[in-house]
């Protein structure tokens, strides 16, 4: 888990954007990999899981931040887990009440959110040390970053593994899908591929950054 040694920071664009790229929960922090591998066999499932997780992240982040001065650190993990599980249960009821069709489509995912390390990780590393508004904004960034990561995997796996995108058949009946991509090994392959790509981008950016600094220092 990323340790945040900084004191409670001022609210800035960084607070939101860090979850999207620099500290992307999946590709950088490697958190929540269990649902990432399990539910990304279609793009629709990825999107739904991402949004549901974002909702729980927001609610639990806000509540943990509100209670941060009250919860003693010896029982913090137990408290965070109770809070997270409560919101996952509420999400479950809410979706069942909104639309049974949507509930059937998401089905088993909702309960999976409880085991998602991103939520507990952010509660511990950020929400417990920062004021409510910061916690909300950061959770929003993290949730969207998580959804983006899920979609990266989901789109690739569905197109290659089922020949469709969001349920729309892309290549017609003659296409022989690469079935391994919708099975667990395929999930690992696609995740490895994306981790590699992101790593290359980051290294390049770091190199460009340090080159710029060198030039600035030399001048």
């Amino acid at each position: 888990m990323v340790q945040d040694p900084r004191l409670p920071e001022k609210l800035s664009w960084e607070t939101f954007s860090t979850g999207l790229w620099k500290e992307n929960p999946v590709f950088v922090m490697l958190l929540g990999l269990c649902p990432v591998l399990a539910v990304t066999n279609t793009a629709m499932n990825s999107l739904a899981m991402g949004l549901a997780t974002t909702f729980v992240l927001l609610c639990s982040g806000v509540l943990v931040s509100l209670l941060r001065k009250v919860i003693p650190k010896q029982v913090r993990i137990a408290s965070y887990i109770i809070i997270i599980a409560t919101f996952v249960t509420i999400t479950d009821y809410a979706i069942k009440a909104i639309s049974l069709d949507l509930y059937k489509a998401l089905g088993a995912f909702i309960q999976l959110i409880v085991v998602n390390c991103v939520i507990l990780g952010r509660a511990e590393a950020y929400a417990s040390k920062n004021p409510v508004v910061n916690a909300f904004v950061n959770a929003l960034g993290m949730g969207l970053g998580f959804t983006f990561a899920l979609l990266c995997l989901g789109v690739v796996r569905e197109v290659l593994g089922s020949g469709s995108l969001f349920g729309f058949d892309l290549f017609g009946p003659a296409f022989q899908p690469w079935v391994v991509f919708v099975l667990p090994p395929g999930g690992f392959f696609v995740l490895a591929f994306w981790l590699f790509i992101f790593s290359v981008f980051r290294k390049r950016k770091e190199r460009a950054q340090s080159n710029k600094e060198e030039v600035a220092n030399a001048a």
Partner: protein
Amino acid sequence: MSENSTVPQPAMPSSANLIIVLVMIAMMSGFLVVLTDQLTADRIAANEQAALERAIFTVLPEATQSRSYILSAEGLSLLAEGEKISNDKQAVYAGYDDEGNITGLAMVAAARGYQDVVKTLYGYSLETECVTGFTVLLSTETPGLGDKISSDSDFQANFDCLEAKLNADGSAVANPIQTVKNGTKTDPWQIDAISGATVTSTAVGNGLEESTVRMLPLLAKHKSSLQMTLTD
């Protein structure tokens, strides 16, 4: 806990303090969950009822109206308007066309799948004595694998006429429905499982077998109570 001793440590909260905080959070959690349950109970029940009604017309496509019956060892009795069914394993939904003639029956089947119970509503034809199709009512099977039971066209083809005939004296189903491995179907009462989703396919088969074996002989016995034509 591992900091050096020159840094002043905050006082360790007493056990009572820790317990109180945990109890308060647990109470708040319990309160929120129960509140949500109460607030959504009616909506959820209404959604489930609407989904069931839609399901009836999905498995009985020629029907435009339906009546609900309860079938038990004592007999088949028609439910009044608005009366709720307490045990849906005993429910028999009869579909009628515009003229009021019966087109088929729909019943509930349930069996344990990979994750949890798989509940389906299946259509049954009185003339051909076969299961004519099914729709999923409740399932939390593996997304992308087990949930293929609704979409896989080869699997659905099993139900064009899945035989569930009674034996000569009508006391039991002659050949109980069974699920077989993908590609090994030889008889009309067998279901060809989906490759990669055998457990869920078997759950569908088991549910149908349990329901047909229990309900069809009783139905034959009390057939006289079934309204073949609507009179009102």
